[in-house]
């Protein structure tokens, strides 16, 4: 394989804000749309265009979708060899486009694909990459030693150290500023049917050595539950004690028209499937109401639910940390509390 060297990108204030439009078999999923939502805010602040990069085979139907969610410009690469995501071929597409158009920011979802692709691109472009961001802002930065001011940098905010710290990362010399962004933390923008985008067709030639991996079989499982879309979530933890006890969680969720969820401990104990896990290694949720039952409130759990509008905690230990993020705290045994709660809900309804 002959290694192609790409030109490094310098600070470029006119550069656009880019979102990688990850798609699987012609559908976008939520992540690129979430990125467009935040990308919009960043692009407005910087006074530049928000663009999406769409690559694949017969994906032109997605152009309107990306426009409806805020992309002003879409770089569209069609190639039968891009039908299935592969690290090296997609890296080539992105590197060529980045070298040509010099965006100042490129965002990827912190998905299985985004976390496979973005580091390879960053390495090829010799630029920085911040992993798994939960927030992105534009702010000036003053170099503490030289007092040099770098204006309007992308502040890439991410948990590290097993979730125990939040680091704000910047890159001010080698651009683009690239980040992967955790799924579900950026709110979905509203859909605007009438929005239109400029489409820029690009061609990238894919050679056999760009397809080094042979995909023998692919299997996608539909998620059993869409926690992110749920307004009301009732989550059970290790304190629920058994799979039978989890029936209380399902009952309360049903009574409220919500869905059940769980801490990792409850998943590990086999009370419920992993798809229902909330937290750092599960889903990040921001419902109107989150009821935590028998959950102690470890950082890795609260990282996935602390943006809920209202939190109710039910725990028999008055000192459980979960009460620290709760709006309503109920100290008691859940087997006593939940039946009374369901009764109260039925009475009101």
């Amino acid at each position, binding site marked *: 394989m002959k290694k192609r060297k790409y030109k490094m990108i310098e600070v470029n204030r006119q550069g656009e804000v880019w979102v990688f439009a990850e798609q699987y078999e012609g559908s976008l999923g939520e992540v690129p749309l979430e990125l467009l939502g935040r990308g919009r805010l960043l692009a407005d602040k910087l006074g530049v265009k928000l663009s999406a990069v769409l690559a694949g085979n017969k994906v032109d139907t997605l152009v309107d979708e990306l426009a409806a969610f805020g992309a002003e410009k879409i770089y569209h690469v069609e190639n039968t060899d891009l039908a299935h995501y592969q690290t090296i071929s997609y890296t080539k597409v992105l590197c060529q486009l980045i070298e040509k158009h010099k965006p100042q920011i490129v965002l990827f979802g912190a998905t299985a694909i985004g976390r496979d692709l973005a580091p390879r691109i960053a390495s090829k472009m010799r630029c920085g990459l911040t992993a798994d961001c939960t927030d992105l802002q534009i702010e000036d930065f003053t170099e503490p030693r030289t007092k040099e001011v770098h204006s309007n940098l992308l502040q890439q905010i991410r948990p590290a150290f097993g979730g125990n710290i939040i680091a704000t990362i910047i890159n001010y010399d080698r651009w683009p500023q690239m980040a992967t962004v955790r799924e579900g933390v950026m709110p979905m923008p509203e859909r605007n049917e009438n929005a239109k985008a400029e489409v820029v067709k690009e061609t990238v030639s894919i050679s056999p050595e760009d397809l080094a991996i042979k995909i023998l079989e692919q299997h996608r499982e539909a998620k059993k539950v869409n926690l992110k879309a749920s307004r009301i979530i009732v989550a059970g933890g290790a304190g629920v004690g058994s799979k039978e006890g989890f029936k209380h969680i399902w009952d309360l969720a049903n009574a409220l028209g919500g869905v059940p969820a769980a801490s990792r401990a409850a998943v590990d104990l086999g009370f419920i499937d992993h798809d229902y896990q909330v937290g750092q290694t599960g889903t990040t949720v921001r419902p109107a109401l989150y009821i935590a039952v028998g959950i102690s409130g470890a950082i890795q759990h609260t990282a996935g639910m*602390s943006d809920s509008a209202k939190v109710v905690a039910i725990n028999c230990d008055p000192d459980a940390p979960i009460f620290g993020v709760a*709006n*309503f705290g*109920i100290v008691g045994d859940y087997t006593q509390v939940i039946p009374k709660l369901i009764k109260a809900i039925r009475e009101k309804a």
Partner: protein
Amino acid sequence: MAYNIVVLAKQVPDTKAVTGKAMNDDGTVNRSALPAIFNPEDLNALELALQIKDDNPGTKITMMTMGLPSACEVLRQGMYRGADRMILVTDRRAAASDTLATSYILSCAVKKLGKVDMVICGRQAIDGDTAQVGPQCAEKLDIPQITYVQELLDLKDQTITIKRSVGAGWEKVQCQLPVVLTVLDTANIPRPVAARKMMKFKKAHSAMELAKADKADLADALKAKGLLIEEWNLDHIEADLQWCGRDGSPTKVNRIQSVVLAASGHKKIEPTEQGLRDMIHELIEDHTIG
């Protein structure tokens, strides 16, 4: 067939053991207050390498780590389980490397080994938490990568077949060696240390470790027994300094905050029928439910 495998392993602070004591007042982490451990998923990487060695006699596993001399412990831990060679990449000029610089340095060290069939990493380190070093090493070495390895399905001559996880599902993929693999914690159960190997290799040390313990004179004797851990610096691996350390790192840490739960104060609800009714009433009033 015999393979040459490099396992990249990182020594990390045990972030699962973080308590208030491990946090400095300025919000940074006091690493010395935390036990240093073998990055958990790197044990899964090592286990995969050992299984390949079990099935392919003659296979050689090189443990490589970049870090302070104290990181020699992960190299020894690798030998206790069945690895064959230990290399510590250590250099003050490598300090403050981000993932780009780290993978540049590690790839220079791997290149120095000559022909390598597989470079096996953990998916992610539990301190930096980025999962970027594996893919970036693959790019620097200009070879394919297979991330999120769940199972080795087949390895014949130069062809490897892997089942990898893709979040909501999996895929079976195949490629020609050499390749970089990043291994998930669910891929296998790492084997325990072998007592006999441990007896032998706990005596292994690097020159810097010996110097620190005022035992520099032991180096030759250890070397003769194959117990001297090789130490490579940036000159040995012919790394270009502009891509190493702080200068080679485009990402800079602007701020670090420890996670303090926003203890906004909550309303206590009595677990009585009346108390719960009142709470439900309040949630209906403000349109949270109903």
